[in-house]
């Protein structure tokens, strides 16, 4: 297949998906609003939607240990797009899905990618979903991403979501919604760092509808300079279920962070916990690392890197 990827796009691809070359297995690479490479595998079909607004990814029941890569890169300033990707994961499948979006903006106009990912996870299926967001470029135009992840997990299904936005995204509004059937599990590890004047909002809404379903949402974030962040998590326990959300945030400089956890039990057997903590780096952590020979700045960097690892 003849694919043209320029060095900037290649760098973005590496940042968001760790790819150095075209991946094995199923993939779809979208650059500047167009699919530039696509490959289905024996068990995983990637089908473009008729109206060109995204793709359907269909994973056959029982597919084991396969992966799908669907990175998106934008290197043209001023591009705005909304993309719908729908994942249908068959019963008993066990797959890894790697998404991610990288925007390089060297111009004055804003670049924006709103990716809406819907997951329909069959009974007993397991999905590991990895999503990274990254921005670069010296332009004054903003790099904006508003991802939505809408999840429905069938009986005894499992989804693990690992999401990170560490650098370069000026404005983001994330929404993650999940509905869980009996015995289903949803776990999230979110890592977020904002700097400069960036703004990030992350909202979770989880419905624990089935008995023995469980959700575990962990968000770790660092807000530097004069950036601001809002974390909202709403967990509804509608059955005999367990739900836990934890927001741990570090403030550096004059940043602002709000954490708004909400748990609602509509069933007396629901067991729900929320934890939220916001504060500066503990002084004693910096002191300990300084006694190992690190400077104050190095100590701070180590603590933040570890925290977001």
């Amino acid at each position, binding site marked *: 297949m003849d694919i043209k990827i320029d060095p900037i796009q290649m760098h973005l691809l590496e940042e968001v998906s760790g790819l150095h070359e075209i991946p094995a297995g199923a993939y779809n690479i979208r650059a500047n609003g167009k699919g530039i490479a696509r490959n289905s595998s024996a068990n995983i079909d990637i089908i473009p939607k008729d109206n060109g607004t995204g793709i359907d990814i269909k994973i056959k029941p029982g597919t084991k240990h396969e992966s799908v890569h669907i990175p998106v890169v934008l290197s043209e300033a001023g591009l705005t797009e909304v993309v719908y990707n729908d994942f249908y994961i068959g019963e008993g499948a066990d797959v890894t899905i790697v998404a991610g979006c990288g925007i390089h903006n060297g111009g004055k106009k804003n670049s924006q990618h709103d990716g809406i990912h819907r997951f329909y996870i069959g009974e007993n299926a397991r999905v590991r979903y990895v999503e990274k967001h990254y921005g670069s470029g010296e332009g004054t135009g903003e790099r904006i991403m508003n991802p939505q992840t809408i999840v429905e997990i069938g009986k005894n299904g499992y989804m693990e979501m690992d999401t990170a936005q560490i650098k370069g995204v000026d404005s983001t509004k994330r929404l993650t919604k999940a509905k869980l059937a009996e015995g289903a599990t949803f776990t999230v590890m979110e890592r977020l760092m904002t700097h400069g004047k960036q703004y990030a909002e992350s909202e979770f809404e989880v419905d624990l509808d089935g008995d023995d379903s469980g959700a575990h949402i962990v968000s770790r974030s660092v807000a530097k300079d004069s950036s601001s962040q809002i974390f909202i998590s709403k967990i509804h326990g509608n059955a005999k279920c367990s739900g836990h959300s934890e927001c741990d945030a570090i403030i550096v400089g004059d940043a602002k962070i709000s954490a708004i956890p909400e748990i609602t039990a509509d069933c007396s057997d629901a067991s729900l916990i929320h934890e939220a903590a916001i504060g500066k780096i503990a002084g*004693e*952590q910096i002191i300990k690392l*300084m006694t*190992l*020979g690190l*400077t104050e700045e190095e100590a701070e960097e180590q603590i933040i890197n*570890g*925290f*977001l*690892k």
Partner: protein
Amino acid sequence: MNDADHSGDGGSMLELKNISFTVSDEENRDKEIIKDISLTLEDDKFIAITGPNGGGKSTLAKIIVGIEKPTSGQIIWNGQDITNLSISERADLGISFAFQQPVRFKGITVFDLIKLAAGHQISRSEACEYLSEVGLCARDYVNREVDASLSGGEIKRIEIATILARGTKLSIFDEPEAGIDLWSFQNLIQVFEKMRSDIKGSILIISHQERILRIADEIIVIADGEVLEHEKAEEFLPKLLNDTESKDESCHCWKKGGC
């Protein structure tokens, strides 16, 4: 005060000259934590600091490390005045400090911490050696985070492992025995003995444990912010033992004018 003779030819590694440390309480009254302490610590010595709680032992250690700045006085390290150096600069010169209550970090693994302590790239097996020395089964610990999931005893031993990894000329331990169970207490004594023969530096330990005092070369008693005694261990220990045998066991008199 019955000072040991420090004017001999042994190089003095660390000299505290007239160190005082005063803090203000809530009502803005000055409280003197350390009162004009002068001490000389020689190279290659095992020195134990003991004395009642609240007497200023930990504060003095923190002043040496640079965590607290003395209100007045000078700290001399191998002839160099380090009173105004930062914690990091003193660490680079060769001062290490094991916290009484070790600090926990989310996301930093035991391996990360030992690597930072070593100050250069080390292999996992090197890190594991340090952990084995403090009696931890290395494979179980090297990838664990130094967070709240570790017990008090575990994190205490990891703290000691970081000091071993640094291997500096002066290692200061603030009550290393606190929170460690009896089995590892024996191990702990061996760690200090091995450390001494391997590193050939000085060890300064704040401790209440007679078994630690017994392996020291010198013992310093600090109470009410002052040095009450600074003696060779062989001179000090018999006095302490006679004292506890003849009188009430729990009650050794550590007041300047007598009890």
